[in-house]
C-alpha cells in the first residue's frame, strides 16, 4: 500500500489574515472549479437517468409549454403576432433559465446546508453550478426553438450566433439575483416559498407571452424598470426577429446584469460566514 505524502506547498489556513471576502470567495470558487463542473454533470445526468427519453425532456418541456400557450393565445385570445409559437418559445426558454437557476441556487443552499456544516467548500459553489446546469439546458433548448422556427416557415437569422452574449448577460443577472435571495434565505427560510410567488408575478410583468405594445403607454413606461424586459427583448431580437439591437440596449443590459451580479456577490460574500452560525 503506497502512502504519498503531499509535500507540495503546504497550504496554510489562517482565520485572521484573509483577503476581503469578495476576492477570497472568487479565488476559492476558482480553486474548486472542478467541483462546479462535477455538480453540473451530476444534475444533468442524474435527473434523467431513469427516464426513457432522458435528456430529450430538456427540449420537450419548453415545447409542450409552447404548444399550450400557442393554443391559448392565438386561438382563444387571438393575439396576432406572426410566428407566435417561435415568439413565445424564444422568450420562454430565456425566462425558464432565469427562474430555474435563481431558485435552484436558493434551494441548494438552504436545503444542502447540511454539507456546508460538515466540510469546507466555497459557499458560492451551489449558485455557480446551478448557473452551469441552466446554461447547458438553455443551449439544449435552442434545438426545439430552431426546429419550431423552421417548421412555421421563418428563416433562421445569422444574429443567432450573437445569442451567447445575451445568454452571458442573463447568466450574470440570474446569478446576482440568486445570490441576493440566498443571502436572505440564510435568515428566513420563508423566502424560498415567497420567491416562487414573486417569480409568477414577475413572469406576467415581462412581455413573454404577449407583446410589450399591447400594454397601455403608462404601464409600458413603468415596465422599463424591470430588467428582465430588456434582457428578454435582447435575446428575442437576436434569435427570433433577427435584428441587432442598438448599442444603448447592449450597454443597458450589460450594466444592469453586471451591477446585479456585483451587488449579489458583495452581499453574499459579506454574509457567507453566517451560514455556519445558523443551524
Amino acid at each position, binding site marked *: 500500500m503506497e*502512502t504519498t505524502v503531499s509535500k507540495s506547498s503546504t497550504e496554510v489556513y489562517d482565520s485572521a489574515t484573509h483577503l476581503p471576502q469578495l476576492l477570497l470567495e472568487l479565488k476559492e470558487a476558482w480553486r474548486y472549479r472542478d467541483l462546479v463542473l462535477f455538480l453540473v454533470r451530476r444534475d444533468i445526468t442524474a435527473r434523467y437517468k431513469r427516464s426513457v427519453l432522458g435528456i430529450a425532456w430538456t427540449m420537450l418541456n419548453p415545447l409542450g409549454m409552447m404548444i399550450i400557450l400557442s393554443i391559448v393565445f392565438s386561438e382563444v385570445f387571438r393575439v396576432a403576432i406572426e410566428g407566435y409559437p417561435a415568439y413565445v418559445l424564444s422568450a420562454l426558454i430565456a425566462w425558464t433559465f432565469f427562474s430555474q437557476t435563481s431558485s435552484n441556487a436558493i434551494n441548494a443552499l438552504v436545503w444542502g446546508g447540511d454539507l456546508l456544516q*460538515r466540510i*469546507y467548500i466555497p459557499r458560492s459553489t451551489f449558485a455557480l453550478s446551478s448557473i452551469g446546469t441552466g446554461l447547458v439546458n438553455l443551449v439544449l433548448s435552442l434545438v426545439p426553438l430552431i426546429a419550431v422556427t423552421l417548421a412555421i416557415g421563418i428563416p433562421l437569422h445569422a444574429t443567432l450566433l450573437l445569442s451567447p452574449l445575451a445568454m452571458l448577460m442573463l447568466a450574470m443577472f440570474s446569478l446576482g439575483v440568486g445570490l441576493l435571495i440566498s443571502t436572505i434565505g440564510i435568515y428566513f427560510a420563508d423566502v424560498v416559498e415567497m420567491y416562487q410567488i414573486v417569480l409568477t408575478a414577475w413572469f406576467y410583468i415581462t412581455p413573454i407571452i404577449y407583446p410589450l405594445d399591447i400594454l397601455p403607454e403608462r404601464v409600458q413606461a413603468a415596465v422599463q424598470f424591470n430588467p428582465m424586459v430588456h434582457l428578454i427583448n435582447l435575446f428575442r431580437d437576436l434569435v427570433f426577429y433577427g435584428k441587432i439591437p442598438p448599442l444603448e440596449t447592449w450597454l443597458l443590459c450589460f450594466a444592469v446584469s453586471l451591477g446585479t451580479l456585483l451587488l449579489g456577490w458583495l452581499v453574499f460574500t459579506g454574509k457567507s460566514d453566517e451560514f455556519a452560525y445558523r443551524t
Partner: protein
Amino acid sequence: MSLPTAPEIQTAAATLTANGLPVVELQDVTVRYRVPRERYRTFKEFAIRRVQGRVQFEDLLALDGVSLQVFKGEVFGLVGANGAGKTTLLRLVARVMRPTKGRVIVRGRVAPLLAMGAGFHPELTGRENVFLNGALLGYTRHQIEEKMDWIVDFAELRAFIDAPLRTYSSGMMARLGFAVATAQMPEVLIIDEVLSVGDIAFQEKSAARIREFREAGATILLVSHSMGAVKKMCSRAAWLDHGRVMAVDQAEAVVEKFEKYMEVSS
C-alpha cells in the same frame, strides 16, 4: 474500526514541539452563537417583533477563549460532555466556520472524516461518485484520476465501480467513502467518534491506513466519548467544558481528571 494503538508514546509533545510550528493552533478563540431568545421562523413574525424592538438575543458561547496547540505527528484527543464545544472546535479546524474572536491557524491540508460519502448520488455510478465526492473534499480532477485505481482497489469494488450507487450495499458505500477520503495523505485528519466502516476485515484495513498516516507524520484530532479509546490512541488530550479548556495534558491524566469531575458532578 479500532484506531492505531499508540504504545510507544514517549512524552512526545515536548520533543515534537522542537520540530517547528504547531500544525493546528487556536489563539484565544471565541465562538459566540447569537440565538434569538424565542425562535422566529417566519419573516413576518420577526419583522413585527423587530419593529417593536422586542427581539432579544441570547449569547451562547460555544467556545470561550480557547487556546490550543497541536504539533506534527500527535494524536490529540478531545473529551468533554455533550455541548462542551468539541464539535465547534472541529468545525473551526475544518474551516467550516470562522471564529467570532481569536485566530485559528492550520498548517496543511485537513481531511475531515466527518463527511465520508458526502454528496453521494444514488443514480450515478461508483466512478462518477468518486469524482464528485473527491471534488467536494477539495481534490482536483487530475488528482482524482491519479488516485482512481488506488481508490477502487482499496474499496474492493473493482467489479462494481461502473454500476449505479443505488445497487451498492451500505458497507460498499462506506468503503468507497473511506477510500476517497483517505486517498491522499492529509497533514491533519479529523475523526469524530471512533468510526466503524464496513465489516471487520475492512475495519482492520482502514485502521491500518490511519496508522500509516500517523507513521508518515500526519496529525490526528480525535473526538470520542469512549475514554478507553482516547487513552489507548492519543498522546495528548484536552478536556473541554462549556467552551473552556479545563485541562491539556497527557491523555491518561486528562481522562482521569475528566472522569473524576463527571463522578463528582453526577
